[in-house]
């Protein structure tokens, strides 16, 4: 079944200059592998097209079972120069929660 990430994981974004890092943290260990397999850095960047202009690097934390996506060129030139109302990009992370992941039907009762 195809499930939106919002039912599988939570997230937070942080800013450094013109770079935004967006964490993706599965609610259950069972969701780590399918997200790792299906949400590549490329897919992530495509999903933020129009806002993230630079490279996206994905870091997988296997022991903690979570991900960090580092998005360059995401903050309109940097927090102080950006014309975006949300110049820190605090709300940028919520976008990825609409991304759809194929999940085994057996995990249905784990969905958030």
């Amino acid at each position, binding site marked *: 079944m195809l499930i939106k990430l*919002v039912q599988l994981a*939570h*997230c*937070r974004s*942080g*800013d*450094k*200059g*013109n*770079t935004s*890092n967006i*964490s993706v*943290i599965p*609610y259950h260990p069972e969701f780590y592998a399918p997200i790792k397999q299906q949400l590549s850095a490329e897919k992530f960047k495509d*999903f*933020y*097209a*129009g*806002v993230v202009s630079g490279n996206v*690097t994905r*870091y997988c*934390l*296997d*022991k*903690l079972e*979570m991900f*960090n996506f*580092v998005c360059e060129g995401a903050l309109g030139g*940097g*927090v*102080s*120069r950006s*014309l*975006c*109302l*949300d110049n820190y990009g*605090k*709300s*940028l992370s919520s*976008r990825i929660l609409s991304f759809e992941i194929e999940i085994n039907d057996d995990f249905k009762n784990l969905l*958030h």
Partner: protein
Amino acid sequence: MTIRIGSGSAWWGDRISPAQNNAEKGALDYLSFETMAEATISAAQVRKRRDPSFPGYDTWLDDRMNAVLPACLREGTKIISNQGWINPDGAAERIVHWLRVHGAQGVKVAAVNGSLITNQVLELTDTILENGKPTKSLKDQIVSAEVYLGAQPIVQALRDGAHIVVTGRIADPSIFAAPMMFEFGWGMEDYTRLGFANGIGHLMECGAQVTGGYFADPGRKDVPNPWDLAFPIAEVNEDGSAIITKLEGTGGIVNTQTIKEQLLYEVHDPSNYITPDVVVDFSTTKIEELSENRVMISEISGKPRTPTLKVSIGCQEGFIGEDMFFYAGEGALQRAQLAEKILRERFKIVGLKAEELRIDYLGLNAIHGDMSPKPAHDPYEIAVRVAARTSTREEAMKIGREVDGMAVSGVGMTGKRVPHQDRTREIIGVWSSLVDRNAIHPTINFYES
């Protein structure tokens, strides 16, 4: 041996009562205040130039100190704070004043200087990290340059008997790592312990962001009593583990999820989080929920520090002009679109010189920009927000002036705010560079109540 370190603030505008609560009920050994963002020092420099009476330290210093000093004096809690901004000595003298008001005699306050290198920055640095250009290209714009100091000068001040240490720019985790290094005698070559200390410091530096702030998502991540969030307390053990917790009876939540979100906050490579004293490796971290609102953190590791320290260079980069106006009900979106067309034509007529112009529809695309999906229905309400980046304040003022014109010369049924301010602000852009750590020499001055 265990020490208890509480958070007193996570930024300049943070709430004060949770700090007082921690001081009064936390049985703390240390209370740490973080009050600076990237541009705080530059903004203070600009203000000081315009207003020589501005003392140059945290504008909430008096309020914060008066809220916590009585309890800290009673409990023997030491205070570590970066409220010194561009004037750590002035902040220390002001704290001494308040100590005397509260009847404390012989309390030692240390001011850590040496982070401000505005006058030497072009000699000490080469390249701007963000764009690879020489730092010399910033020559005529520089407002301030500050090195991120590490924990060492705080540890030294504590060894010399300071009860309160106030600094200028310093790496945020250091104000939490320093008490651990001092109390447990962790040396500058013990990278595992330093990695742990700065890792815990990183979890603590944003205050309520680890106790349920910046977290709630109704139905998925619920936070009890979110109007009464506590600031965190770390119970740090000498063996290299710590429990992150909060005062009983307060709002908020500490669990695996809040810890994980904060662990990656403003981190790039989690295996190589660079601080002045150590490169922290978070990838090895172990997180265990012991009981409600008590989470044990261990196995954070560290690697040798880099030969350089980070420098923030604040530059004057022009101005932003900004304003907004509103529509509602039938045809709101169409009126907003006509208003945008009128404004774009007006900006041509008045010859607006903007490096970037942005017109957003709040409720449709103002936050997520081009990523925003097309709405299934026209919105009932809409705000049109206009912003431009310009090189002069005069150009930036044209934004507000043209929005003023929309009041009687614009579109039907336009809602507008009273123009209560000039609607421009100065941009202080922040660039980064690196400096040889051997070129930086922090100094400590002591004051006594």
